[in-house]
């Protein structure tokens, strides 16, 4: 694909040198439009695939967190973190749904609009609207940053507040069992301790598996997008000596678009990894009070 873009650009530069000799400006302009249409067609054919890939990956990640988090939170309850689980579950599920919807419903269309504007703004010399597309891309990055900050902030705040309460609850359960059940109370008290410890190990294992699956879902699209971003920038750098400034800025603009998509994917997966590890961590710190 990049070979064909390069070939188109080289052919155009030869045509341009010839038509400049003809002293007819409109011919060189028309060759520019033809070259532009060809390059944009090539780019668009793979851009649609990439957008669909990013969308399905984000939906898969959110769907996976729907199935993972209830299990994790149930295991959290068996370790005695009832208050944490009760407080964290609605908030974490709400936030993940909310952020997933914002990304697929708002940010992806904004990226598409920004890309369309950046492509159309390079058609003509006089009418330039690149700043508008830059505005769209940077607002996408801002919204993403705000979402991520809210997610991590709310989750860590909730966790620290409730885990100490849970530590006390687990301790009370153990004390109640060992004091109020006659004869075997002491042994049963130790058993309660063992049960809590064992389900803690189980919960940590489930959390680790969750993190591995999240990374497994998003690693291939992330690698693909990284390679694409790098190749668009390299193509822009390679074309600069022979091509028009507008073509170079088109290629680097597409690189910017892929970079924003990459940022989106990475932030969703980092958000989920942080969410899962925080849930595991919260209940572990609850256990430290025993």
């Amino acid at each position, binding site marked *: 694909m990049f070979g064909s873009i390069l070939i188109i650009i080289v052919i155009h530069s030869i045509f341009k040198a010839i038509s400049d000799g003809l002293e007819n400006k409109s011919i060189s302009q028309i060759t520019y439009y033809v070259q532009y249409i060809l390059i944009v067609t090539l780019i668009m054919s793979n851009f649609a695939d990439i957008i669909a890939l990013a969308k399905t990956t984000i939906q898969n990640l959110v769907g996976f967190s729907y199935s993972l988090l209830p299990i994790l939170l149930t295991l959290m309850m068996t370790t005695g973190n009832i208050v944490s689980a009760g407080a964290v579950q609605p908030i974490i599920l709400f936030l993940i749904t909310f952020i997933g919807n914002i990304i697929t*419903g708002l940010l992806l269309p*904004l990226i598409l609009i920004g890309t369309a504007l950046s492509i159309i703004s390079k058609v*003509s010399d*006089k*009418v330039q609207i690149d700043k508008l597309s830059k505005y769209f891309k940077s607002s996408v990055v801002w919204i993403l940053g705000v979402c991520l900050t809210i997610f991590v902030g709310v989750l860590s705040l909730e966790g620290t507040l409730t885990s100490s309460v849970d530590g006390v609850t687990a301790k009370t359960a153990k004390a109640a069992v060992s004091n109020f059940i006659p004869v075997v109370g002491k042994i049963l008290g130790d058993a309660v301790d063992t049960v809590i410890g064992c389900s803690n190990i189980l919960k940590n294992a489930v959390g680790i598996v969750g993190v591995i699956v999240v990374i497994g879902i998003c690693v291939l699209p992330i690698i693909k997008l990284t390679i694409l971003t790098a190749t668009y920038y390299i193509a822009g750098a390679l074309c600069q000596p022979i091509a028009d400034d507008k073509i170079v800025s088109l290629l680097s603009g597409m690189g910017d678009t892929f970079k924003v998509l990459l940022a989106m994917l990475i932030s969703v997966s980092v958000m989920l990894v942080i969410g899962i590890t925080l849930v595991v961590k919260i209940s572990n710190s609850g256990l430290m009070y025993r």
Partner: protein
Amino acid sequence: MIENLSLWAEQIIVAVIIATIIEMILPNGNNKKYIKAVIGVYVLFTIISPIFR
């Protein structure tokens, strides 16, 4: 909201394409710079049209 936004972007794109075509077929005359200014104002108004609605 997204529908309105994409409609707006569509209008901008159409405006830019029309401006480019007009610019291409414009004869090299005395009035060229005025016509270009008018085209610029047209694109500008398309961009800020949501404010007036």
